[in-house]
């Protein structure tokens, strides 16, 4: 499609503005992570030539970032997977009105969306149920926060899948679980991906959970690691920037290799 010139200019300008809004913060952090602290004090905004990589070594050694990244990946993938599966197992019968209590169940999850984290009782519960300070416990404690949004979202997705399919499959004698896995899962895939991503980020962004539910440093996820690194290095800007990049790099990598899938699923791009 040929665009007229002013229209093209406008699209170009907005495109550049969007790019700047999201690129400038990231480029700045990358730049100062490559500056020595002397250079940062003298000319912070001058690109470092030649770049110094010393910050990365010091940040890596000072924070326990490597094992913490592994912990975060384990916690967030497992909790999000459980949470998404359970959401679908509730959403399907609720959307199809297969249970008598479908409406109260749905409404209670809508209310659940509004629940602020009841952190003190949760702490007592985690202690009494043996979930305190261990990996399995930490994962189980993070399943619930993903459920309300998952149930609401997946109910909407299942609702949009025609019921004729159910009837056909049931006539063929497909079992309940088999039907969900073989037919509903692929059809509700965009919703499943969004649910999974949302609850994954809930675990990944949790900064209070690691403080309340964990005490052994070898179990800490990276959100706690980066924050305590920040607290103890508040004025070491270049070091801080390097630490931020170290923890973001694996996530950024995962995101870049999966973005096609992700954006296709969430926004319908081919």
């Amino acid at each position, binding site marked *: 499609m040929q665009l007229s010139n002013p229209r093209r200019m406008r699209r170009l300008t907005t495109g550049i503005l969007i790019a700047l809004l*999201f690129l400038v913060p990231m480029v700045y952090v990358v730049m100062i992570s490559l500056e020595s602290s002397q250079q940062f004090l003298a000319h912070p905004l001058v690109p470092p030539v030649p770049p110094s990589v010393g910050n990365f070594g010091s940040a890596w050694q000072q924070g326990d970032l490597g094992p913490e990244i592994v912990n975060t990946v384990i916690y967030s993938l497992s909790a999000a997977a459980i949470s998404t599966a*359970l959401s679908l197992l509730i959403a399907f019968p609720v959307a199809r009105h297969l*249970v008598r209590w479908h409406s109260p169940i749905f409404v209670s999850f809508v209310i659940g969306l*509004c629940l602020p984290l009841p952190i003190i009782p949760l702490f*007592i519960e985690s202690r009494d149920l043996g979930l305190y300070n261990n990996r399995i416990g930490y994962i189980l404690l993070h399943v619930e926060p993903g459920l309300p949004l998952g149930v609401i979202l997946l109910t909407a997705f299942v609702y949009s899948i025609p019921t004729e399919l159910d009837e056909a499959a049931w006539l063929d004698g497909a079992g309940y679980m088999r039907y969900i896995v073989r037919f509903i899962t692929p059809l509700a895939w965009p919703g499943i991906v969004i649910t999974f991503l949302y609850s994954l980020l809930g675990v990944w962004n949790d900064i*209070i959970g690691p403080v309340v539910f964990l005490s052994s440093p070898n179990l800490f996820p990276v959100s706690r690691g980066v924050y305590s690194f920040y607290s103890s290095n508040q004025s070491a800007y270049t070091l801080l920037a390097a630490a931020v990049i170290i923890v973001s790099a694996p996530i*950024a990598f995962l*995101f870049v290799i999966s973005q096609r899938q992700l954006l296709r699923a969430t926004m319908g791009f081919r």
Partner: protein
Amino acid sequence: MWAGIAIGVGFFLVFGIVPTVANLVISFTNYSGLSGTPTAFTGLSNYTQLFTQQGPGFTASILDTIIFVLGVTVVQNVIGMALAHRLVNDTKTGSALRILVFFPIVLGVTVVGIVWLLLFDPFSSPAASFFGLFGVHPGFFGSNSWAMPLVITVQVWQNLGFTMAVYIGALKTIPASVYEAAMLDGVTPWQRFTRVTWPLMAPAVTVNVLFAVIGSLITYNIIYILTDGEFGTNTLGMLAFNTAFGQTADLGLGAAVTIALFVVAVAVAIPLAALLRSRERRLLA
């Protein structure tokens, strides 16, 4: 079937409902969390303290909360909608920019917080240098007039990707034939938006507005990292967190704030959802 429902609902009851009910009970006591100190029921005293408290308490934080929630909801949805329109086409630049807008969500709240603290450091940062050119030296996150707009900016910057994704998803479901019909009627682009696109996107607006309102109402982690609730950014979510965990930890009072926050969230969410739904029906009819 029942097993599947039971496990999920079980998680919801054990880790969602039970602790909230426990919180409700704690909010009527002087529970301190320390072993050895007796716990007694104190009736509504935590709640009366909430409303009569001097200084940075519940009443003061209501205004901060309103500004934050309104600011985030409006800005996030307006920009999210604009971005969705600009980036809905499946071009190379479009997809590169979509990835870019989505990226902060992936970075996580701690990293995003630190990045913006570095960008707006009052002494040595691009923002400080820029304003220094005009001889102004604002305190940014440490100043009463700057902190709230900046905190809103960061919250929006981080979550814009989701809002945009929902709007793009909705835009892509509008059949091209609808636009062709509108084009034949000779409508202007603005009319096309207000009369065709906007009504058809009503369900997406519902989802985005509701999530932005509830999300910003109960959030605390980004505020905790940026300002710790100081300089006029003490929203209810932040206050609930700080009363239970801050310097003067008071678990009973903290529980009372959490319950009050829950009541506010439900009181806002239910009428809002009803309002948006009736708007959907009106627009889609």
